[in-house]
């Protein structure tokens, strides 16, 4: 993600590059909660409110710092009876988006 010659960026070291082996969790300052008054799930991040759709909520709930991305994809492929590759691409893309802003971080690397 950092190109040679980019300034030394501490954030680059803690940013997650999402792979199937990643074990993601919500970063400090990121809250997934149900908004009672609007009857929908919201993701609260610094100075912003993000509205995840139903599937995004399901994925975020699986980001518990225990499960690998591969395990989540397996689960979702079964639940949605959809081709695993398709699910994998969508899940990784969504997570990478959140990881780029530091909202989703790596809990630990699993052994490859």
């Amino acid at each position: 993600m950092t190109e040679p010659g980019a300034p030394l960026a501490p954030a680059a070291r803690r940013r997650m590059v999402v792979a199937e082996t990643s074990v993601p969790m919500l970063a400090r300052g990121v809250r997934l909660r149900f908004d009672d008054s609007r009857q929908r799930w919201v993701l609260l991040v610094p100075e912003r409110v993000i509205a995840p759709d139903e599937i995004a909520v399901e994925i975020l709930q699986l980001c518990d710092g225990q499960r690998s991305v591969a395990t989540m994809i397996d689960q979702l492929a079964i639940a949605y009876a959809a081709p695993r590759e398709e699910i994998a691409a969508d899940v990784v893309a969504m997570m990478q988006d959140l990881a780029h802003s530091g909202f989703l971080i790596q809990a630990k690397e699993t052994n490859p």
Partner: protein
Amino acid sequence: MSPTLTDTSPVFADPNDGVAIMESRGASVAETYGIPLAVLLELTHRCPLQCGYCSNPVEMERSSNELTTVEWKRVLTELAEIGVLQVHFSGGEPSVRKDLVELIQHATDVGLYSNLITSAVLLTRDRLTAMADAGLCHIQISFQGNEPELANRVAGFKGHSKKLEVAGWARELGLPLTVNAVMHRQNLHQLPGIIDMAVSLDADRIEVANVQYYGWALKNRAALMPTLQQIEEMTATVEAAQARLHGILDIDFVVPDYYALRPKKCMGGWGRQFFNITPSGKILPCHAAETITGLEFDSVRSNHSIAWIWQNSEALNLYRGTGWMPEPCKGCAFKEQDFGGCRCQAFALTGNAGNTDPACSFSPRHEEIFKTAEQEAATGTNRYIYRNFAGGTLEPEPVDGL
């Protein structure tokens, strides 16, 4: 399946984003609008910094008029109950309030997400730790430059090195960090350095905000207005940094509108999706709204609930929607997109908040405003009028090298 994340950020989002509309209570003259997702709480106007671009009104609220701890707690509880999700503790400098940790704790207890918008110069490591322990979710620290001499001069306070120190503590405590950089003619040359500073501070995000000219900033416009060339360089710098730092630093960019063709959709439209509460408890559609004279804003100290005020305040209903608009807004294809621009700017520049914002090229005053900006940028004084309770103090004769 394709998961999507919609940004419903209060100021920038489309107001028709599906946020549930509150039931109307009582006969409101306007349409009803849903309770905002986030509310700005200006705990105090007191601040050790004296930045000439401050958006606080020139007539500032004395500490004796500030809401008490008990009153702020009641406000926080009520905000959570009616569906507000986030609060921004701001000011003035919010940490001047001795009860800040207590208020953050109360926000946490009632389920609110809390942001701290601070100059950082009064914080100690212990106090910041106490805030983090009380559930503070995010800290935004303002910087006036990336080099102490200029930064301290802009602020009228020697605080730059302290800010760097506090930013370091915030990261050690794991708090998400935003660097706020207000840009103007006298610090725009430092923008590349400020962006690099944010990266080396390990910030998650930087807000590069051009000065908006209300309150103190309007008083100091001649000393702050950038040149058109500076604006062009700035845009190029920001766009290059956004590409280079993707995945490292989120960059939000607030563009200056004096040189624009289209006005900004200020606050997402007057009274549509945002309000703030002043130190004395008044509910405003934006933090600069008290610069418009002749409007009466309802207070949380009145016998009305916050939800009632949001729906029924005469001042909030005055410029809601599009019904109030004169020409050229009335027949304009863009009226639902920018809602005629900014009411405070219309008032500041034309004397009538109900006019089209002169930042809009359709305003009869547009040309004149553009020329004023160009002229002030070229020939305006560099001396600031420092913000204070005495109505402002002119900066001493410039020191060599600045």
